[in-house]
C-alpha cells in the first residue's frame, strides 16, 4: 500500500498523424467498434489478430519489429512502443494524442476519483494552486468532454468536474452538465469552482435550471475578510464575487460545499472564518478543511505557505469544533491522524485520490494505518516532521492527542 502510485498517463510513438482519439480500452477482442481502442500488451498472442472496426490501437509492442501485427494495424490510428500499458484496465477511457504520442486515462474503471478537467484556464491565481492554470485556448476541448461523458458507464457512482475554473467555459459548462444528466442520470456530480462567475445571477440561475438530480459545487473560501482571501487567490474583488456567488447559488437551491485550505496565510483566522461561514453561509451543506498539496505553485511559494500542521492545531480545532457545535457538517481532508488532535479524528476523511495517495515508511507500523488518509504522493519529501507511527498503547492513553 505504500509508494505505489496509480499511473494516469503513458507515452509512445505515434504511427498516425490525425486528430486525437477518445475511446474505451478493450483488452480482448470482444468489444470491437468505433467507441473502443484496442490495447495489446507485449506477450499477448496476436497471431491472426484482426483489428478491423476499432477506433485505434495502443500497444507497448514495437510494430516496426512485428510484421504481422504491424500489417494488421496499418491504416489504424496507432500508438506503439508505449512505455507502459499495464495500468490500463478493460473499460478505462483513453485519449490518444498522436501529435505527442501521449496517452491519458480520462476515466478509470472502479476509481471513485474520476474527473472531467473542464479547462486549463483560471481567473484566479491561488498561491497554493496544485495545477497552475495555463492561458491557452481550449474551447475545442468541450467536444472532447461531451465525447467522454457519452462513453462513461452509467453505473458510475460519482464524477468530478474540475479545472482550471470550469465556469470559464460559460454556457459550454452547462452543455457538459446537461450531457451528464442525460447519459449518467444516477451519477453524483461534484464540481470544483472558485464561485466568482456565480456573482452573475443569471449564470447561477442557468446552472440551477439544468436541474441535475445529484449535483454539488465545492467553492473555496480562505478568509473572513476580502483582503486576505483576495491575497490568497491573487485576484482583486474575488472575495466579494465569491460571496455573492454563494448567495446566488443558494437562492436557486444549488447545493454547496465550502473548501478551506489551511496554511501559513490562512490558519490564524480559521476560527473567525468558521464563525463567518456559519453566520453568512449557514445554508452550505458541508465545510471541508484541507491540507496543502505539494504541487504546482505550492512548491514555488513554499516559504509563504508552509507551516507544520502540528503548529495550527489550536486554530483548526477551534474552527472545526465551532462549526460542529453550530450544527454544520464538517470534514478534515488530507491530514494524517498522527498530526491531528484526538477530538478532530472523527472529522478526518480518507480524501486523497487513489492515484496520488501514499504512506511513508514510518507509517507501516502504525496502529491506525487503515483509518488514516495518508499523504499526497507530492508530500513524500516535504511533510510534517511529526509524522510517526501510533502504537495501540497511544490510542488508549488518556492524555493522548
Amino acid at each position, binding site marked *: 500500500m505504500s509508494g505505489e502510485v496509480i499511473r494516469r498517463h503513458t507515452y509512445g510513438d505515434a504511427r498516425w498523424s490525425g486528430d486525437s482519439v477518445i475511446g474505451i480500452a478493450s483488452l480482448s477482442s470482444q468489444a470491437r467498434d468505433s467507441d473502443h481502442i484496442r490495447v495489446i500488451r507485449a506477450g499477448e498472442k496476436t497471431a491472426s489478430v484482426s483489428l478491423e472496426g476499432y477506433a485505434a490501437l495502443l500497444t507497448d509492442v514495437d510494430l516496426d519489429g512485428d510484421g504481422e501485427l504491424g500489417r494488421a494495424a496499418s491504416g489504424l490510428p496507432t500508438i506503439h512502443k508505449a512505455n507502459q500499458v499495464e495500468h490500463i484496465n478493460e473499460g478505462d477511457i483513453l485519449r490518444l494524442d498522436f501529435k505527442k504520442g501521449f496517452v491519458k486515462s480520462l476515466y478509470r474503471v472502479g476509481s471513485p476519483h474520476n474527473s472531467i478537467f473542464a479547462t486549463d484556464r483560471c481567473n484566479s*491565481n491561488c*498561491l497554493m494552486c496544485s495545477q*497552475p*492554470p495555463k*492561458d491557452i485556448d481550449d474551447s475545442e476541448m468541450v467536444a472532447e468532454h461531451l465525447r467522454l461523458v457519452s462513453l462513461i458507464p452509467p453505473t458510475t457512482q460519482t464524477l468530478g468536474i474540475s479545472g482550471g475554473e470550469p465556469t470559464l467555459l460559460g454556457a459550454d459548462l452547462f452543455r457538459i452538465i446537461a450531457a451528464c444528466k442525460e447519459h449518467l442520470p444516477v451519477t453524483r456530480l461534484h464540481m470544483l469552482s472558485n464561485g466568482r462567475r456565480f*456573482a452573475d445571477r443569471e449564470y447561477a440561475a442557468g446552472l440551477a435550471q439544468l436541474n441535475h438530480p445529484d449535483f454539488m459545487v465545492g467553492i473555496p473560501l480562505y478568509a*473572513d*475578510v*476580502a*483582503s*486576505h482571501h*483576495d*491575497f490568497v487567490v*491573487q485576484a*482583486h474583488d474575488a472575495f*466579494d*464575487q465569491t*460571496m*455573492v456567488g454563494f*448567495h446566488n447559488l443558494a437562492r436557486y437551491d444549488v447545493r454547496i460545499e465550502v473548501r478551506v485550505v489551511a496554511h501559513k*496565510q490562512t490558519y490564524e*483566522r480559521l476560527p*473567525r472564518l468558521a464563525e*463567518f461561514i*456559519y*453566520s*453568512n453561509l*449557514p445554508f452550505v451543506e458541508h465545510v471541508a478543511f484541507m491540507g496543502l498539496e505539494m504541487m504546482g505553485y505550492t512548491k*514555488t*511559494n513554499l516559504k*509563504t505557505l508552509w507551516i507544520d500542521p502540528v503548529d495550527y492545531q489550536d486554530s483548526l480545532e477551534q474552527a472545526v469544533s465551532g462549526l*460542529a*457545535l*453550530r*450544527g454544520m457538517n464538517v470534514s478534515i481532508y488530507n491530514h494524517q491522524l498522527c498530526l491531528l488532535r484526538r477530538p478532530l*479524528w*472523527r472529522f*478526518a*476523511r480518507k480524501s486523497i485520490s487513489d492515484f496520488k495517495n501514499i504512506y511513508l515508511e514510518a507509517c507501516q507500523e502504525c496502529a491506525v494505518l487503515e*483509518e488514516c488518509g495518508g499523504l499526497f504522493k507530492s508530500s513524500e519529501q516535504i511533510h510534517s516532521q511529526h509524522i510517526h507511527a501510533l502504537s495501540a498503547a497511544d490510542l488508549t492513553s488518556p492524555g493522548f492527542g
Partner: protein
Amino acid sequence: MSLDSASKPARFTFHPLESYRRNPRQYTLLPFRFMRFGASRFVLVNEVGEFIFLDEEIFRAFATKGLSAELPTYLDLKAKHFLADETSSPLLDVLATKYRTKKSFLRGFTKLHLFVVTLRCDHSCHYCQVSRQSEDRAAFDMKPSTARMAVDLMLKTPAEAITMEFQGGEPLLNFPLIKFMVEYSEARNQDLGKRIDRVITTNLSKATPDILEYCRDHKIGLSTSLDGPEWLHNANRPRPGNDSYARVIENIALVRSIVGPGSVDALMTTTRRSLSHVRDIIDEYVARGFRSIFLRSISPYGFAVKTRGKTGYLTDEFLEFYREGLSYILELNRRGIEMTEIYAKILLTKILTPFPTSFTDLQSPAGLGIGAVVYNYDGDVYASDEARMLAEMKDKTFRLGNVHDDTYDAIFKSPRLRSMIAASVNESLPGCSDCAYQLYCGADPVFHHATQGDMMGHRPTSEFCRKNMAIINELLRYIESGDEAMMRIFWGWVYNRRLAEEASCPAK
C-alpha cells in the same frame, strides 16, 4: 520582449497582502448600537444581531475612525459588518439577506392559533388569569358553531405551517369540542394541504386513556403545568382534594406510555412561594424526566393582579430567582444531567444564530394577530392570550372582532391591529431605538397598556424592559467569559442536541 520574460509569464508573479487591502484609512461605520458592558468594556450589536465586545480604548479608536487596519480587531469588525472600507460593497446585499433572514418570522403571517374551548376549570390557581369554577356549560363553553367559524377563519391564514393550541380553562372539560375541531380542520385541510400541528394545554387532571389514545392517533401534543415539588405545586394550584400534584404526576406517566415519551412538556409559573426554591423546582423537573424547563414570571393580568399580595413579587426578585436557576441548570448540565432553560434557549438563538425564533412574545414587531391569535369561547378574537385575559378585566382594547360578526379582512387588516403593531416596532420605540439589545428583544404593547396605560410604554419604568435587559445581559456575560464547556451547553440548547450526541459520534 526578452526570452526570459516570455518563459516566465505574469502567472508566476505574486503580489503581497498589502496590495489587496481596500481603503483602511477611509473606513465608514455600518449601523450598530452599543452599550457599556462592565467597567471598561462595550458591547456592540449590529442590525443583524452580530455582536462584539471591545475595550473602551479600542472602541473609541474605532468610533473615531482611527483604528489601524493591521489589528485583528479591525478585521473582526469588518468581517462582522461593523465597518466597511470600500466605497460600495456587494456584501451589503449579503447583509440585506441576513436582515431578511432575521425577520423571516414575519413570513406567512399568523402561525399560532389558540382556541379557548372552555373557561371552566377544576383548579382555582391564585395566579390564574381567567378560569371559572362553574358547572355552567352554556355560559362558558365554546359552541360548535363558534368553533367551526374559528377554524374557518384560521384556515384563511396564508401560513403554510400552523399550530392549533387548545386551552382553557381546562380544555379537557370540553373534549368533544376539541375532537370536533381536530376532525373538522383535518377534513377541510385535505384540499388546503397545510401542515397543522396540534397541542392541548391542560392540567391533565381529567386525562383518560381514551382521550390520550385519541391524542396519539391524531398526533396531538400535550403541554401541562408543573410548578415544582408537591408542597409548592399544590399550594400554587388548589383543587378540591388538594391532589393536583398527584394527578399531574400520574397522568404525565400515562401520557408518556400512551402518546409517546416526548409527547408532553411542562410549564411552571413562578409565585412568591417559588422564589427561594428554584433548585427544588428544577430538581423536580429532572426527577420527572423532563429535559427542559421554562422559568416563567407571573403575568400581571386577570386574577394575578387582584391577588398580587399573595402571589406577586418584584422583577428584581424574579431576576434573582432566574439567575440562580440558570446557574444551577448549567451546573447540572456540566454534571451530565440534561436540562434546557427555554427562555435562555430562545434568547441564545437570537444572539448566537443568524435565525429568528417562533416565540411570539419577544419579537419586533410583536406577534399580536400577525404571529398568534386567540379565539375566545364566545367567539371574540384577541391579539394575544394576554389581550384575552385583559378583556376578562373588562378592558377590550385588544379585541379584534368576533368570528360570527367579522370577516377575515375586518379582523386581520383592521386599523386597530395596525396601530397595535405600530406600537410594537422596537426599532422606533423610545428607549428601544438606540438600545444595544434591540435585535434580541421585542415589544409588548399589551403589557405596557396594562401596566403603564400606554401601548408604547415608558422604558425606564418598564418591568418588561428591566427583566429582558437583565437576562440578555446575564447571557452575554456567560458568552463573554468564553467558557468552552458552557458554550457547548448553550449550542446544545440552540440545536436541541443531547449532551452525549456530539462527543460520541463515531469516526467515519
